[in-house]
C-alpha cells in the first residue's frame, strides 16, 4: 500500500479540526485510528453499544461546546437513520468516518446489502457523503468534511473504500 499510515493522518486531521470527543463502535478498519485516539489523553473516547448512540453523543457535546467525530463501519450507518432527523432539524454539526464493508471482494455476503445502501441511507437523511478510494486522499477528505461540518453546521460522512482498508477474512484478521 502506498500510504500505510493513513490512520495517523486521519488522527492528525481530527486534532487540527479541534475534535475533543471520539465516539465509536469498533471496526477492524478503524483499529489503528482507535488505538491512536485511546493513546491521546486529551481525547475523550466513548465506546458505543450501537452507532445511533453516537448521534446523541455528538449533539450533546456540541450543545456543551465540544466537537465530536464518530467512527463506524458501514453496517452501523443504518442504525443511525431515525436519530439523524434530530441532527438535520437542529443543524447539529456531524462528522462520521465510515469504513466500508460489502464492496467488491467482501467475503461475507451478509455485509453486502447494507454496504450497498450506505450512501443512499446517509443522503436520504441529508448527510453529505464523500467517498475516498485511495489512501493518500483520506486525510484531506476528512479535513474538508470537518471544516464543512463546523462552518455550515451540517452533517458530513467520509466513506473509506474497502480497497483502502484491504479485504480481510476473519481468519486473516485473527492472525494480525
Amino acid at each position, binding site marked *: 500500500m502506498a500510504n500505510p499510515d493513513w490512520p495517523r493522518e486521519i488522527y492528525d486531521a481530527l486534532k487540527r479540526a479541534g475534535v475533543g470527543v471520539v465516539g465509536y463502535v469498533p471496526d477492524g478498519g478503524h483499529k489503528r485510528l482507535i488505538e491512536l485516539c485511546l493513546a491521546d489523553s486529551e481525547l*475523550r473516547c466513548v465506546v458505543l453499544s450501537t452507532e445511533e448512540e453516537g448521534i446523541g453523543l455528538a449533539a450533546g457535546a456540541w450543545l*456543551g461546546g465540544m466537537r465530536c467525530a464518530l467512527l463506524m463501519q458501514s453496517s452501523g450507518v443504518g442504525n443511525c437513520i431515525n436519530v439523524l432527523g434530530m441532527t438535520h432539524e437542529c443543524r447539529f454539526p456531524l462528522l462520521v468516518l465510515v469504513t466500508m464493508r460489502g464492496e467488491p471482494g467482501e467475503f461475507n455476503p451478509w455485509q453486502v446489502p447494507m454496504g450497498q445502501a450506505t450512501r443512499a441511507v446517509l443522503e436520504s437523511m441529508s448527510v453529505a457523503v464523500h467517498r475516498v478510494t485511495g489512501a493518500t486522499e483520506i486525510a484531506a477528505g476528512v479535513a474538508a468534511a470537518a471544516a464543512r461540518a463546523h462552518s455550515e453546521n451540517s452533517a458530513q460522512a467520509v466513506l473509506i473504500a474497502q480497497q483502502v482498508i484491504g479485504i480481510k477474512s476473519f481468519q486473516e484478521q485473527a492472525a494480525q
Partner: protein
Amino acid sequence: MSSTLHRRDVVGALLAQRGDTLVVAGLGSTAWDCTAAGDSPLTFPLWGAMGTAAMVGLGLAIAQPARRVLVITGDGEMLMGLGSLATIGVQAPRNLAIAVIDNERYGETGMQATHTAHGVDLAAVAIGCRFASACIVREAKELDAARASLLSGEGPTLVQFKVIAEKLALVLPPHDGVALKERFRRALLGATAAG
C-alpha cells in the same frame, strides 16, 4: 404496588431547585412536563430521536464537567436506549443524572403498556451497568432525597419515579430545533457562541 405520585409534581419538584443545572428532556410527556414547570434556555427538549436523550446528556456532561446535567425522560424512551446505560456506566460521568418518569405507558400513542408495566426494573439495569447509584421512588416522602441525589449526588445516577398514568394538558416547548440549540449554546457558552 401502585404509585401515588403525579408526574408534574415530580418534575416540578426537581426543576424548582435546578439552579444552573443543564436539562435534557426526552420526547413526549417529559418534554411537556419540563415546559409546564417553566421553560428555560438551559433545557433542551427533544421532539424526536427516541432513545437518545441519555446520550445527549452524556455528550453534554463530557463537554461540561463542572456543570450538573439532568436528563428527564420517560420509561418508553429509556427502554429504547437501554444500551446507552451501559455506555454511560463505562464512561462514569460524575455530573450526569437521569430521572425516568415511569408511568408504565407509551403516553403519546394510546397509553399502551411498556415493559416496566411487566416488572422490568430500570434502576436495577442501571446498577448492573455500573451506575454509582440508582433506585425506584414511589412515594412523596422520598422526593427530597431523590432530588438531592439527582442534583448533587455522585453520578452517574438514575432515579425511576413510579407515577400515576394520567393524560394531562399539553404544554409544548418551542419546536424549532435550530432555535432550541442556539438559545441553549448562547445561555451556556455566551453571546458569541454561534451555531
